[in-house]
């Protein structure tokens, strides 16, 4: 299975744990959610003053959002609100934390990994690297990115966009006295961490500062309210479509059938083709524009397939063999 439904989880009262994996020794972490197979995870990490790490790279795409404090990375200083998307294999400069910092750190493909290196991996997709201050260097836009859309009173800043899957990472706010009287679900998994402020959903009650969720596809959420305003980091793992309805008791299977019914009505030719005999492509049909999309780590992850080169179900540590 992938990540379980973690909602709501308020991490503020949970203790940090010593982070003893290579590249993180000297820091502390909390797991917000974890893929039980691949190890992909969202962590809150505390870097105490004096933390240092040499330059290096990870075998997983990594996203980094500074909640407070400052982190020196190579020649850059990542202050409060700084966001970075670091593709797998992208070399990051030496890291040092003079006075302490807390950050959300997301490994999208596997458990946290780090190897010392002074250069990029030869296969690194470095063009997707992005590093900027989300508070200062990106404009707020209206929440109606997609249609049907959220009600007025939600603002969004896009931090990262995956062109193949349309997965997005974004900063969002809800204004004081925001309300939206519908129930929503999506085809994608959705994740959020409340940096400040509280919002309310009819299923889960209040989500305060430090509140978090990882919500798998087709799970109902809403109606929505926000009394005093809130600001949060959000992510999806693929294209977000808002399926709105008003049945408070619908379950994920019913929601999935309703989503398929949308496809049946709105893209009938595609539905017929995909559902007909002989078109069962377990790794996806050919795409002349993106010929190698089957190998993309994010696409494979969405279909519960191990990365290329790794046999399915063989990601556990091998038994130690005798050298003789």
């Amino acid at each position, binding site marked *: 299975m992938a990540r379980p439904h973690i909602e709501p989880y308020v991490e503020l009262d949970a203790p940090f744990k010593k982070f*003893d994996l290579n590249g993180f020794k000297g820091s502390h972490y909390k797991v917000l959610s974890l893929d039980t197979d691949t190890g992909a995870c969202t962590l809150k990490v505390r870097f105490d003053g004096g933390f240092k790490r040499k330059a290096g790279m990870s075998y997983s795409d990594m996203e980094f959002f500074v909640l407070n404090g400052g982190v020196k990375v190579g020649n850059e200083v990542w202050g409060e609100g700084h966001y970075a998307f670091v593709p797998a294999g992208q070399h990051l400069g030496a890291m040092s934390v003079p006075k302490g910092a807390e950050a959300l750190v997301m490994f999208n493909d596997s458990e946290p990994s780090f190897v010392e290196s002074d250069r990029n991996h030869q296969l690194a997709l470095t063009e997707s690297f992005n590093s900027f201050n989300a508070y200062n260097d990106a404009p707020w836009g209206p929440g109606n990115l997609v249609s049907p859309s959220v009600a007025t009173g939600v603002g969004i800043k896009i931090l990262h966009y995956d062109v193949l899957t349309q997965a997005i990472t974004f900063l969002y706010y809800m204004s004081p006295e925001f309300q939206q009287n519908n129930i929503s679900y999506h085809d994608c998994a959705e994740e959020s961490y409340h940096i400040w402020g509280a919002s309310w959903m009819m299923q889960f009650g209040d989500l305060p500062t430090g509140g978090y969720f990882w919500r798998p596809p087709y799970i109902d959420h809403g109606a929505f309210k926000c009394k005093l305003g809130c600001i949060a980091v959000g992510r999806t793992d693929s294209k977000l479509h808002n399926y709105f309805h008003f049945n408070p*008791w619908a*379950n994920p299977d019913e929601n999935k059938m309703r989503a398929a019914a949308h496809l049946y009505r709105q893209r009938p030719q595609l539905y017929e083709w995909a559902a007909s005999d002989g078109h069962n492509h377990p790794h996806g049909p050919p795409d002349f524009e993106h010929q190698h999309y089957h190998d993309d780590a994010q696409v494979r992850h969405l279909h519960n397939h191990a990365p290329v080169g790794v046999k399915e179900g063989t990601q556990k540590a091998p038994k130690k063999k005798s050298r003789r």
Partner: protein
Amino acid sequence: MAQRVQDKKPKRNKTAQAWMDENVAEQKIRHRAIVKEMEELEPKRKKWIRDFLKTIQTRGFNVDGDLLRKIPKAEIPKEPKRKHRVVW
């Protein structure tokens, strides 16, 4: 076939596997606690649902953005007999 950096990741070592095992086990406990907490919220949720069903008949249901539609009573769904779950 295109190769990615992720494909070159060495097999998970013992330390990383121990980290996984520990955190997967803790996540199971956390998930159970969330399920319990959400089940205990059901009496309050029943009231929230009543309020919601009333609001969409009076103020309106958000069809798209700020577009509201008042839902006629005949369209209001009936509660099924099965147990209501919100965490899956």
